[in-house]
């Protein structure tokens, strides 16, 4: 049997502003993960860094270390590659003031 791999859509057309994060995703079976973040609309205001977070329980989160600048233009895409993350993954970003971005966040997991 081939090893499992899956594409999960963890945020689709979600408008991120303030402290934003994707929904928690359980991925303990996966040895590697890649998040893609695409801006579906033209982002407004200064765009922050987006970071990968991991968690022991899906409720308490800690930065994993991987970061990328949020996409600066409509349809720009950024990727964050992760290994050795335990069981839970999400991405998070902190927007200042009225800054915002409408995102598609895709999580690719591979056993």
């Amino acid at each position, binding site marked *: *049997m081939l090893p*499992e791999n*899956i594409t*999960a*859509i*963890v*945020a*689709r*057309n979600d408008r991120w502003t303030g402290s934003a994060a994707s*929904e*928690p*995703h*359980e*991925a*303990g*079976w996966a040895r590697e993960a890649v998040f893609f973040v695409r801006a*579906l609309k033209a982002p407004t205001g200064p765009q922050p860094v987006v970071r990968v977070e991991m968690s*022991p*329980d*899906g*409720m*308490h989160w800690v930065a994993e270390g991987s970061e990328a600048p949020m996409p600066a233009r409509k349809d720009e895409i950024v990727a964050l590659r992760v290994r050795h993350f335990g*069981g*839970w993954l999400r991405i998070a970003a902190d927007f200042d003031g009225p800054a915002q971005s409408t995102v598609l966040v895709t*999580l690719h997991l591979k056993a």
Partner: protein
Amino acid sequence: MTQTIEDMAEAMRLAMLRADPKLSRFDPLQRIISHDMFSEGHGGWSQLVGNYQGDLDTMLPGYAQHTSAMLSTLPHWDAGSHGGMGSSYALKIATRPRRGAQNAAIKRHTFRHRGKIRFETYFTFKPEATELKLGETDVRAVGFLFDLQSGDSDAGGERVMPHIRFLNALDGEHVQKWQFKRSNTEFQPVGEGDGVLSHYHLAPEGWEDLPGGRQRLCYNEIATKINWTYLCFDFDLDTMMPLALRCNDRELDVSGMDSIRMPAMKNLWCMLNFVFFAETDTDKRAFLYVDSVCISGDF
């Protein structure tokens, strides 16, 4: 006593089923259409995405909230991974942490025979354990539905959608009863142009009680202990009517049940879709876990 070849074949089929630890917990009909154990992957249970046209903003809000199901070990902050019945994994359908939020997972097939089908599963549900409380009224409902359509050569073709849910709690009241839905939600055109319609059939309106459908399930005593519950639903694809519903030790009365019905749509012939769904009654995520699913048919 005279045994026919059919009798002997059936006896052998049952003997083989009962000797198989993975299938013995089910009572499948003659032909197994699919048997999903989530230690082997997602098995085709995917995200129920809504229809859209031109712009994702045209998707109805009920669908826009949906996310992808996960392979879960039911990990808990206080006791670690709970695991499934026969492996470490179950399928997990998680809502967002907003009262009334819903999520769903769908498996899309078509059918080749118009007859009885059987949908069996072992499932459980819990809220996210964000509080040191029982949380037994945090999950509003869990359930399943079929999305079916007759064949393209059938006269008077219909799309038929039997819906069943266990209404666990509503507005904080611990209701614990089985319900069905037959009233349709209005179709709306989505986006600019012709041809794309959408209706959010999981909307909160229109649920009716199954007679005698109150049932207290094994919830256990804290938010991080779970027990698996058996459910079996029989449906006839010929008459497009429900035949039987069983949950653990209870046979439920489906004689008065009907489905959401509408004229056949132009591109859904012989559709045989299965959906699990969950809904939260509080600002906590609701989790529906599915250990395994066996779908079988009489053909």
